[in-house]
C-alpha cells in the first residue's frame, strides 16, 4: 500500500525596484509594482489558471484524488491585488474538501534563523490569512524553502503543529527511505514528512530534459516508478513548486497532458491512494527518530542555505535587516513594519547568489536583476532609507 502525497508551493515575492542612491531619503517606493503585476499576470495565464483547471476537474470527477498547497502570504496578497480570479480558482479547489493548505511564514522569510519572535509572528499572520481566505486552520507546517533542523521542529511542535515537511536529503537519510514518517529526535508528537526528491525532481526538473535517458516522461511510466515503492514505504511525498506546471515546464513539453493522465494511472494499481499531509500524520506512525542537527533545505545540489546566505553580500544584507527589528517594532508604524517584513522575503537574498555557474538557470528565474550585485545594491539602498525612517528625530 503506498499513498501519494502532493504538496505544491505557491509563492511570488514583492520584487524591489532599482532603488538608487538618489532615492534614499526622498521616497519609500521600494516595490517594483509594474513588474510584480506583469509577472503575476504572466504566471497566472501560463500556470495558475490552466493547472487549477486540470486539478479542479480531477477533484470533481474523482473523490479519491487529493492534493495540498502552501501559499506564502505575499502571494495571496498579490492575488488579491493583481489576480483575484486566480484566488477564486484556488478557493474553488479548497472548497472541494479534498485539498489541504499548509502553514508557513507569511513573508516567505528566513526569520527563524535570525529572530524567533519574528518567525512566530509571521506564522501567526499566515495562519490568520489562510483562515480568512479558505476558512481553514492548517495543522501541518512547512518552512520557507524547506529550511529545517531538529531545533526548528521542536519550536514548531511547541506552536501546536502536528506535522512538518523537510527535504529527504541523501546525506541525512543515508540508507533510510524518505517514504516513511519519522520523529524529529528533539520532539515527542510532531511527525516529519520527507520529500522523495528523486520522483519529485523527475517531474519538476527533468520532465522536459531531452538529455535524460527516461525522456519523455509519461504518466504510465511515472506510475510504474511509484508502484515500485509498494512494500517499501507508506507515503511517497512529491513536493514541488507549483510553477513547475506551465512555467518551469512549458505547456509544449506536454506537462499538462501528463497531469491530466497521472491520477488515473496511479490509481490503476489497487494498492495506491492519494493522501494529504495531515492525513498522513494521522494514518502512519514514525518508523524511527531522525537527527538533523545541521540546517537543510530543498535548494540546489547542496541542500543547504548557500543559495540565500552563501556569500558575504547575502549574509550582510540578512543580518542588517534583522538588526533593526527592535526599532521598527517600537515605532508602531504599520507601513514601516510591512515594508520591513516584505524585505525579509528569501527571494531578495536568492537574487544575490553568486554560485551561478552550476545552478545558474534556476537562480535566474523571475530574477529582476541583471546580476547578483545589482540586487545587493538596490537592497542596501533601501536598507539605508529604512535607517533614515527609523532614526530618532534630531532634537531642535
Amino acid at each position, binding site marked *: 500500500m503506498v499513498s501519494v502525497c502532493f504538496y505544491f508551493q505557491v509563492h511570488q515575492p514583492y520584487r524591489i525596484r532599482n532603488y*538608487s*542612491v*538618489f532615492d534614499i531619503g526622498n521616497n519609500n517606493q521600494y516595490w517594483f509594482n509594474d513588474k510584480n503585476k506583469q509577472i503575476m499576470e504572466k504566471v497566472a495565464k501560463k500556470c495558475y489558471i490552466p493547472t487549477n483547471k486540470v486539478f479542479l476537474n480531477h477533484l470533481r470527477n474523482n473523490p479519491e484524488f487529493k492534493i495540498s498547497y502552501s501559499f506564502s502570504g505575499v502571494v495571496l496578497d498579490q492575488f488579491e491585488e493583481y489576480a483575484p480570479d486566480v484566488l477564486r480558482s484556488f478557493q474553488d479547489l479548497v472548497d472541494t474538501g479534498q485539498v489541504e493548505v499548509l502553514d508557513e511564514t507569511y513573508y516567505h522569510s528566513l526569520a527563524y534563523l535570525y529572530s524567533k519572535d519574528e518567525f512566530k509572528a509571521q506564522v501567526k499572520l499566515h495562519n490568520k490569512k489562510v483562515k480568512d481566505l479558505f476558512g481553514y486552520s492548517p495543522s501541518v507546517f512547512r518552512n520557507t524553502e524547506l529550511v529545517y533542523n531538529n531545533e526548528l521542529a521542536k519550536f514548531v511542535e511547541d506552536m501546536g503543529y502536528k506535522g512538518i515537511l523537510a527535504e529527504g536529503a541523501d546525506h541525512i537519510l543515508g540508507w533510510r527511505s524518505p517514504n516513511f514518517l519519522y520523529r524529529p529526535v528533539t520532539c515527542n508528537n510532531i511527525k516529519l514528512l520527507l520529500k522523495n526528491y528523486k520522483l519529485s525532481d523527475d517531474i519538476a526538473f527533468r520532465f522536459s530534459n531531452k538529455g535524460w535517458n527516461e525522456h519523455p516522461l509519461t504518466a504510465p511510466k511515472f506510475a510504474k516508478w511509484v508502484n515500485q515503492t509498494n512494500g517499501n514505504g507508506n507515503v511517497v511525498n512529491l513536493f514541488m513548486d507549483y510553477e513547475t506546471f506551465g512555467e518551469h515546464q512549458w505547456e509544449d513539453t506536454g506537462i499538462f497532458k501528463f497531469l491530466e493522465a497521472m491520477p488515473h494511472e496511479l490509481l490503476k494499481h489497487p494498492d495506491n491512494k492519494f493522501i494529504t499531509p495531515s492525513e498522513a500524520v494521522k494514518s502512519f506512525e514514525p518508523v524511527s527518530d531522525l537527527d538533523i542537527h545541521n540546517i537543510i533545505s530543498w535548494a540546489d545540489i547542496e541542500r543547504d542555505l548557500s543559495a540565500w546566505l552563501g*556569500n*558575504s*553580500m547575502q*549574509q*550582510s544584507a540578512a543580518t542588517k535587516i534583522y538588526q533593526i527589528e527592535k526599532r521598527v517594532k517600537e515605532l508602531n508604524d504599520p507601513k514601516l513594519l510591512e515594508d520591513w517584513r516584505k524585505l525579509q522575503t528569501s527571494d531578495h537574498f536568492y537574487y544575490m547568489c*553568486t554560485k*551561478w555557474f552550476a545552478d545558474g538557470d534556476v537562480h535566474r528565474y523571475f530574477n529582476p536583476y*541583471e*546580476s*547578483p*550585485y*545589482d540586487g*545587493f*545594491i538596490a537592497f*542596501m*539602498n533601501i536598507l539605508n532609507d529604512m535607517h533614515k525612517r527609523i532614526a530618532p528625530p534630531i532634537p531642535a
Partner: protein
Amino acid sequence: MFGWEFPPMSSGGLGTACYGLTKGLSQHGIGVTFVMPYVSEGVDAEFVKLLPANTAQKIKMVGVDSPLHAYITSSEYQEFLLTYKKTGKQNKLYGHNLFEEVYRFSMKAALIAQHEQFDVIHCHDWMTYEAGIRAREASGKPMVIHVHATDFDRTGGNVNQLVYDIEKRGMHAADMIIAVSQFTKNKIVEHYGINPDKVTVVHNAVTQEEKPRFHINKHDKIVLFLGRITLQKGPDYFIEAARKCLEFDPNIRFVIAGTGDMEGQIIQRAAEYGIGDKVLFAGFVKDEDLDRMYQLADVYVMPSVSEPFGITPLEAMKNGTPCIISKQSGVSEVITHCLKVDFWDINQLVDKILSVLKHEELHHALKEHGALEIKNFTWREPAGKCVDVYKKAIAGG
C-alpha cells in the same frame, strides 16, 4: 600577420591583443611572422618572428603627395606621435600623416609577401588592410582581417570617410573576418554590408602571469578611469559622475590616467565644477605603473560610448580591482562578475560607484569572483578559434 604595434611599444589594447594572440597561436603550433612598420628595441617575444617593414630590402621610399593631407584630423595618429615622442624614439618611418604611412606600409607589404613563407595573411585593424590586400595579390594566399575597432567606435558615428572606405574595402576583400565581439560583428554587418556568415566572433583574453602586489598606502577611496581621453572612452561621463559622487561623499578621489584630445576639455570641466582638487590627472601610464594604478584604485570605471572589446577591465580584475563597465562594450558579453551600466545613465553609474566604495561585502565579492572568472580568459582558446578561421579561409571560405 600585419600589425601596427607590439608591446612594449604600444599605445593601447591592440598591441596587447597581438601579443597575446601570437603567443596563443604558438601554443597551437602556428608560426607567426609579425610585420609592423617599425620594431623598437626592447621587444621580447621568442614565439613570434618580428619583421620591421622599414628594414625590408629593396624598398624605394616614395613620398606620396596626396590629397589625403586635407583630411588629416585623426586624433588617433596624433596620439601615436605623442606616444612615440614621449618614449624618445622618434621613428623615421612614421610620416607626416597617417594615410601616407598606411600607403607606404602597404607598398612594402607586397614585397615582404614575395619573400616570406606563409599560408595565410592576418591583418589587424584598418591601417593594415591595404597591406593585406597587396600581400594577397602578390602571394595568392587567403586574407583574414581582424576587426578590433571600426571608425564608428572611434568617432561616435562621425566617421572619417577615408578611413571608412579603407575599412570597407578591406572587409570586402577579406576571405574571412574576425570580430572581437558580437557588438563589433553587428557593426560590421550593419554599417559595412558584410554577410554575417563571413564574420566569426573571437573574444579577446588576457595573459595569465601573476601580478606583482604593491604596498599601497592611502587614505582616500579612489575611482579610476584609464584609457585615452577621447570621445570613444566616455571621459565626459566619468567627470559628470565624479561631480555627483562628490555631492554624496567629498572624500572620494577620481584619477584619470591617459592622454588624448579631450584632456584639456576634461581638466577645464573639473575646474568649472569646482572639483579640480578631487580629480587627478596621471598622464599616460604603462608597464608596472599600470598594475600599481589598478591596485591603487578601489573601483575601475570604463564608461566607453562604444567599445569593440575593452581589455582594461580584464587587466583591472587581474589586479583585484572591481569594475564598472559600459554595456556598450564587447567585454560585457563575456564577463559576469562586474557591474554594468549604460554609458549615458550617469545616475546609475554614480549609484554603483558609491555602492562599491561603501559596501565592503560588495567590493570583496566582486574582487574574489572577478579574480576567479578571469582565469578562464586564456589566449589559447581565442587562438584556437583563429586557427579554425584560417582553415576555413584556406579551404576557400
